């Protein structure tokens, strides 16, 4: 077994600040570093990201590797991959963690192949056992869990499912040793982002962090009925989500898809309307504290995950439910 060289996490920034996944990475990273007895290092890559360094220190990083360069300011992962590869080779961590977010999961997989090591993506639990990292990951759409190890190659790599790990708590008195990392990015960029199209922000709270979410499924029958979902969401002050059946059909934008290949959410209240509860959908909402299902099929799988259920036609139930909730909230 190679000597433990600690845990390295690759933090992520958004709009200048740290993305929430960074605290989740440091939370589990700290636990693993303690078991292994090594340091916890956070790398942050980007342009104008120096301020993130102190925030990472407050979140418990012992060392922060700051790769701050205009060359890393462009969207796309190619430059980040060029910058990260020598950094990881030099640090030689025992464990390397990234978020399972659109950019980081690409970066992680390419890095794993480049370094010739093993990666488990979309992990929901991590622990050290017999000196090796055991990575738990849902497979078969979430029907089963698999535990993987990387017996020989190093680093042992994992990407973390967002909102599946408890974030580290910020402690303003904790400081990290910050090291600046030189960034050399070659000109050999073979793909280039020429345009970024943002979806119009939907009204109401954002899906990812909402306390309450109302999702609609194919059972709605068509886009003309989507207003039922929106009305119920408005009554609850909830964000709106959808199943893949609905986003693939183009009733609502892909960004609203909840599930394995969509967003993972953990609201206090999740109301599923006309949703069958396929495993791949449940994978994205099973962390909800309370699931409420409205479905006309009493055998629908969603009821196996719901705390409260109504068997019936949503068209009959949703309007009076929205009205009653509004009354109660008044």
């Amino acid at each position, binding site marked *: 077994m190679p000597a433990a060289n600690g845990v390295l996490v690759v933090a992520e920034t958004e709009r200048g600040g740290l993305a929430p996944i960074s605290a989740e990475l440091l939370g589990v990273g700290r636990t693993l570093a303690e078991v292994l007895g090594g340091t916890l290092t956070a790398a942050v890559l980007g342009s104008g990201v120096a301020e993130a360094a102190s925030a990472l220190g407050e979140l418990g990083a012992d060392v922060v590797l700051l790769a701050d360069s205009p060359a890393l300011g462009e969207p796309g992962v190619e430059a980040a991959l060029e910058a990260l590869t020598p950094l990881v080779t030099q640090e030689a961590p025992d464990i390397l963690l990234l978020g399972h*977010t*659109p*950019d980081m999961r*690409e970066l992680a*997989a*390419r890095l794993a*192949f480049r370094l010739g090591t*093993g990666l*488990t*993506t979309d992990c929901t639990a991590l622990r050290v056992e017999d000196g090796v990292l055991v990575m738990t990951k849902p*497979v*078969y*759409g979430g*029907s*089963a*869990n698999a*535990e*993987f*190890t*990387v*017996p020989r190659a190093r680093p042992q790599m994992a990407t973390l499912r967002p909102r599946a790990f408890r974030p580290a708590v910020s402690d303003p008195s904790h400081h990290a040793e910050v090291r600046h990392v030189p960034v050399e990015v070659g000109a050999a960029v*073979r*793909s*280039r*982002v*020429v345009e*970024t*199209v*943002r*979806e119009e922000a939907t009204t109401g709270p954002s899906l990812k962090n909402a306390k309450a979410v109302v999702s609609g499924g194919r059972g709605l029958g068509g886009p003309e009925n989507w207003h039922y979902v929106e009305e119920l969401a408005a009554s*609850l002050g909830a964000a709106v989500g959808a199943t893949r059946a609905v*986003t*693939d059909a183009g009733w609502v934008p*892909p*960004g609203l898809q909840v599930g*394995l*290949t969509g967003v993972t959410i953990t609201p206090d*209240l999740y109301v599923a309307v006309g949703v069958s509860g396929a495993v*791949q959908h449940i994978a994205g909402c*099973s962390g909800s504290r*309370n699931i*409420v*299902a409205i479905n006309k099929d009493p055998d629908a799988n969603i*009821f*196996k*995950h*719901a*705390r*409260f*259920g*109504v*068997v*019936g036609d949503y068209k*009959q*139930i949703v309007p*009076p*439910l929205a009205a*009653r*909730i509004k009354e109660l*909230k008044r």
Partner: protein
Amino acid sequence: MNIIVTIKQVPDPDIPPIHFKVDEAAGKVVPPPGVAPVMNGYDANALEAALKLKEAHGGRVTAITLGGQEARDTLKRAVAMGADAAVLIDDPNLREGDSFTTATALARAIEKVGEYDLILCGRQASDTDAGQVPLGLGEILGLPTISPVIAIESTNGGVKAHRMIEDGQQVIEAQLPAVMAVSSEIGEPRYPPLRGIMMAGRTQIPVWTAADLGLDDGSAAPKVQLRRLYIESREQACELVDGDTPEEIAAALAQKLREAKLI
């Protein structure tokens, strides 16, 4: 434009959860009797995208699978849908591998097929749910890789892909050849026409082994090891709310939510 599509045969992802069983000792899924494996959904989307590009710009579409002999059925389906050729990689030493093994074998097979402008994969296989193989192919072959892709346009000399990000999409220009991992938003796969099904019956599918790919030296040995496969039940008892009228049901449910301090 010559396109290679990597296609995996997978257990039907739509089987009801009660029929999903694993053999913990063997670390394997027990296929439910009478349910045939299927073409991985995102690979069917990738094949559809390849066929559309071929229809617009000409070229050849080749489907490649790493799997057992039963995976021939999936390759036949690919030919029936419109692929011009299919290759099966079948070797016991490669079949039990991980993403590294699979990407290495597919990369060697792609090099052996030869001329290609675009490699289309699915964004993830519905059994592994890993999403690693396309990125691995990109690394091994030294090609730009884009994932997940929801639209592809051919430009003169290159290709433009629309990549999904959290709150929208990026339009990415890439040099060819390139690897793209396709998502379902790109469009529903076609059903194989009768003519295609007849054609598929006659198509020869070559089988390549690890030795044929120069991989009989263990260089594609897995990096990752499965330690345990198990089902974790998270089912809970559901309290069904009932009443004589929809208004009554709605009021009762709202009351429950209030008592649970959810509103």
